[in-house]
């Protein structure tokens, strides 16, 4: 029985795999880490689920009666908007997680390992995807209790899931960039709010854009959040799809194409302070 701390000969260390296989397994380990965070951080999980439910009830029963959504009932109009708003705020969890890793020195530790260290970002993004799917399921169930009546077929639901995942994926990578740019965890919270708040409220999430003043309306109708919401709404309750599906695809792919390499670049040059 050997009792020394450094007893294992070096040769046994690190079985050598191809860069691809080890990159994949590094990502897997770090995804597992981030997934554990979801249920270990109960306060965060509860706030991510409870807050949107309260918003949904607020709009359904307090404001909803005063908003004219044409042929669609307000609750049917609302659900797509509230789901995407929740997904957008949920995606900012990545920036918090990344900033916390930087602050705690975990990024330094991972970067001093012989691994694909940016896999830590992938881990946080995947955790956002899982968390957002979970919170969306809870919200749709609650919505059904308050007279939400979707007309979506099984294929439509799969496409709705696809939209949700694509949007979350894009916003989580954007969020990773923010997390790496920010100077502190507090700054990240503020930054995420300032970005997501106007994108979700100056959109078609809660009211039809027709009643907005001209310039606000131009912004609201052309920004990505509105496109995702309108596409999802069309699939859920049969409003006209228009070009929203394609616009969503283009916006999300563009965000992803810019943010993944940018995040990787920022990550390489980042050291904990």
């Amino acid at each position, binding site marked *: 029985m050997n*009792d*020394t*701390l*450094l*007893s*294992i000969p*070096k040769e046994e*260390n*690190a*079985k*050598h*795999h191809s860069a691809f296989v*080890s990159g994949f*397994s*590094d990502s897997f*380990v*770090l995804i*597992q*880490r981030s997934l*554990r*965070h979801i249920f*270990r*951080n109960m306060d965060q999980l509860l706030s991510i689920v409870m807050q949107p439910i309260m918003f949904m009830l607020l709009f359904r029963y307090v404001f909803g009666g005063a908003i004219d959504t044409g042929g669609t009932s307000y609750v049917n109009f609302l659900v797509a908007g509230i789901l995407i708003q929740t997904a957008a705020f949920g995606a900012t969890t990545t920036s918090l997680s990344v900033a916390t890793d930087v602050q*705690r*020195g*975990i990024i*330094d*530790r*991972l*970067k*001093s*390992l*012989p*691994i694909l260290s940016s896999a830590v970002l992938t881990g946080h993004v995947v955790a956002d995807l899982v968390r957002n799917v979970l919170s969306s399921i809870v919200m749709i169930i609650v919505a059904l209790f308050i007279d939400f009546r979707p007309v979506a077929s099984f294929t439509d639901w799969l496409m709705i899931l696809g939209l949700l995942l694509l949007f979350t994926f894009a916003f989580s990578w954007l969020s990773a960039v923010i997390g790496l740019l920010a100077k502190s965890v507090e700054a990240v919270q503020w930054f995420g709010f300032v970005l997501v708040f106007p994108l979700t409220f100056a959109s078609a999430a809660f009211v039809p854009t027709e009643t907005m003043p001209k310039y606000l309306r131009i912004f609201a109708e052309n920004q990505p959040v509105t496109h995702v919401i309108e596409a999802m709404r069309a699939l859920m309750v049969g409003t006209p799809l228009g070009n929203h599906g394609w616009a969503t695809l283009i916006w999300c792919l563009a965000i992803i194409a810019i943010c993944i390499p940018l995040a990787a670049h920022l990550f390489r040059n980042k*050291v*904990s302070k």
Partner: protein
Amino acid sequence: MATTSTKNSIEVKGLKKNFKDLKVLEGLDLTVPKGKMLALLGPNGAGKTTTVRILSTLLKPTGGNAYVEGFDVVKDSRKVRSLIGLTGQYAAIDEYLTGEENIIMMGRLYHLGLEESTRRAKKLLEQFDLVDAGKRIAKTYSGGMKRRLDLALSLVATPPVLFLDEPTTGLDPRSRIAMWNVIERLMKDGATILLTTQYLEEADKLADRIAVIDHGRVIVEGTADELKAKVGSDRLELVFSRPEDADKALKINGSGSIVEQDDRHVLVIPIEGGVEDVKKILDTVSGANIAIESMSIQKPTLDDVFLRLTGHAATLEQAESAKS
């Protein structure tokens, strides 16, 4: 493969690092022979952490060269990373994972496989006195436990070269001693260690050699004894209420110097031989029926080192600005 001398695990030549206009390292030279420990001693802001970050491939130097086991830290950074373990100033652990999960995660990132990682986690938790805590999430740990877990994480892959950046800063005395014991065992097991510290006592206790750095340069390097010879050893201070007593004591003892402090008369005697020496001096003085009012033993501090070597105190502006 840029091999320099193979008997040195760490070699640093003329290392420079600027952060914009701020010159942090201004031509730092270091060597650490295989299996030895060098302590990098200096105040906040002297460049200790920057040196460790360059050696552990986290920062690129502005100039100069650094090699770990003969590999260039810039050109062969991936190879260097497979040879080093890093423990930073803060416990870089995942607070939402348990101690065991933290270690297993590190093992798997070193591609040791789940089974081997689990085996090492069990062993490391035993060796670091964390068996009971191993199943709890690390958020609940005390400061000392977090640091021990942090050190355990840097040992998962049994790297031959370790960088310990102020491993005991902010720890209570008990945790500090526990940490020292672990570091001493690592030395015995043959690790090459670069330790940074602000405490002369720590460097003295642990390291084979000490390099004192200031403003990004090594200002003196040597064994603890060599350094102390430069700085002065421990001092015994005897306080007398009457000046003639102090004079008499000096005459009997034969060495020392008298310092007048307020209305007290202090005989300061350097002690070379530890406890035995102190006992001899006290026996001699009190044997001559001289009344000693009080006594104390003063150890040389980092401040003493700096005052002697640089003429300025260690706790000046750099320390202040780096604190917040």
